[in-house]
């Protein structure tokens, strides 16, 4: 569990459109790495390329390499399905499966893959994952109710439980709190703090305070201009980025002088 990611010279395309150019960075294990930057600079694009979700979009492709503990994820013989089993993802909008109960949603990763397990095993995984996502106490009496019967914040934690139920090495979160109220946001931030004991976490956020609160390292992305590809401007320890960034653009962005 908890592996590191090394990204080298990553260019990401949507068909002919170069969306992100020349990203190189290391994502440390057992730590939270935050991606910040203005809208459209390619944060989602980068995070989706980390578990090969980018190529799900027709015409989308990348150049460069991403290595998980030294193993190139984009090598020819690598199966993207296996990559996604090791690198989980939580999306901006909570997306529990509407046809499944809370219980079934948590073990969806196994059930959808036809993995056999006993009722007892399944119950154990459900309880462990829901506890891991700080949701157990709220839903333990209604595990058979539909996942969509929960509030937005609970649904998002259900999606986190679903992602950690398959015990990935890395957990990617693309703006997991942007659709949530402050209390749910706080619950998820606490959760991220706990999860980093076991997982490598990458989180995209629009909220600078959130990046400062939860992350150990922060990467700042920016666009050179309209129609230009997004780039990684700088990446450093979070305190350094927020107190004394090297680049002028970073300082402008975090102090709100941007645009």
């Amino acid at each position, binding site marked *: 569990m908890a592996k590191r990611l090394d990204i080298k010279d990553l260019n990401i395309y949507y068909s002919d459109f170069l969306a992100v150019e020349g990203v190189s960075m290391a994502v440390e294990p057992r730590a939270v790495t935050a991606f910040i930057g203005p809208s459209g600079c390619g944060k989602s694009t980068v995070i989706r390329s980390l*578990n090969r*979700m980018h190529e*799900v979009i*027709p015409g989308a492709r990348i150049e460069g390499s991403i290595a998980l503990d030294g193993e190139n994820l984009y090598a020819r013989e690598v199966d993207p*399905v*296996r*990559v*996604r*089993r*090791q690198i*989980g*993802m939580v*999306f901006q*909008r909570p*997306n*529990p*499966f*509407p*046809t499944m*109960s809370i219980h079934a949603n948590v073990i*969806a*990763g196994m*059930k*959808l*893959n*036809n993995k056999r397990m006993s009722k007892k095993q399944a119950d154990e995984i459900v309880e462990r994952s829901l506890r891991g996502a700080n949701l157990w106490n709220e839903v333990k009496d209604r595990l058979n*109710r*539909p996942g*969509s*019967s929960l509030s937005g914040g609970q649904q998002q934690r259900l*999606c986190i439980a*679903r*992602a950690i139920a*398959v015990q990935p090495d890395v957990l990617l979160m693309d703006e997991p709190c942007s659709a949530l109220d402050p209390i749910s946001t706080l619950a998820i931030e606490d959760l991220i703090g706990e999860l980093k004991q076991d997982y490598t976490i990458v989180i995209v956020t629009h909220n600078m305070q959130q990046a400062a609160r939860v992350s150990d390292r922060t990467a700042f992305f920016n666009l050179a201009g309209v129609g230009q590809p997004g780039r990684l401007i700088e990446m450093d320890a979070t305190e350094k980025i927020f107190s004394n960034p090297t680049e002028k653009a970073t300082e402008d962005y975090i102090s709100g002088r941007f645009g």
Partner: protein
Amino acid sequence: MTDVQTPVDIEASLAGRKLTHGKLPRYTPMAVFVGSLVLVGGLLAVLGSFSIPLTVFLGVLLHAVVLLVVTRMVEGGRAAKDRLATTLMYSAFGLALIPLISLMWTVLQNGLKRFDLYFLTYTMRGVFGGMDAGGAYHAIIGTLEITLFATLISVPIGLLTAVYLVEYGPTRLGKAITFFVDVMTGIPSIVAGLFAYALFVLFFGPGVRMGVVGSVALSVLMIPVVVRATEEMLKLVPNELREAAYALGVPKWLTIVKVVLRTAAAGIVTGVMLAIARIIGETAPLLLTVGVVNSANFDLFDGRMMTLPVYVYRQYSQGFAPNGITTINYDRAWAAALTLILIVMLLFAVARLVSRFFAPKTGRR
């Protein structure tokens, strides 16, 4: 802000922004409706030309005008337009119901005469002239078997085609398939029958008559309907659900089977039912391919079979019987028509239950 409003201006503009206005009592539309009907009916009766359709027609017209004027005077222009639109919509609804109810009424009235357990469980074997006997058992068997087999052919093909079209993208092949599916939708049913007949002649020689030929003919008509309905349902499944499954390391085919098809299942079931309803009443292709027979034949792969629509056609075309119950053929035709309608209704009731079972669980409690 360059031009500052004076206090007087504000007060003047506020006067036109009252939150309250006159309100008619809630029973007004109903009262006006009943009043109009009574008035028109009475007037027509006095003039000596009373008739129900004319009363309803003129009554609704009067109702619309009176309600419009009254509402306009008391509640204002917007409320009046609202009332007018409501009247129009109810009228359109009533108009649409007239043929439906009248059809059901006619079929019930004529069909119930001979519709009983005997009719459902006896064939036409050895029945002739105006004999007080004969049923549609053989035709029910034929319709159920042929339709079921047509469904068994069409649903897998239609489902897989729709999955290809939606999940494997708008390739050139996909566009070609969409085009041909559209063309297929327009194939006249008799042509489908000729096609199926010609196809089986290749294997069995001319004059071939089998239930399965009819099933093939019907599936030519059914496949495009299933493709279209399923395609629309699959398109409604949010992409987020596919991505959620991919992100859990679920391969694409399992995602399609267990997430996409599962989420769309309720709609697909309804679509398939509509497709069945579309073909179960087909007559021409069955007359051509399956033929006519008077006794029960359970074997789809051997010999002629009777089907309900063909039975109706056959009975009706025989006209009055020379002796015995002279209207017997017409009575049997109506009873068979009633049977067909009941089968379709039963299918829809089952489909309702099934799709309720499959429907995504929503709602908070």
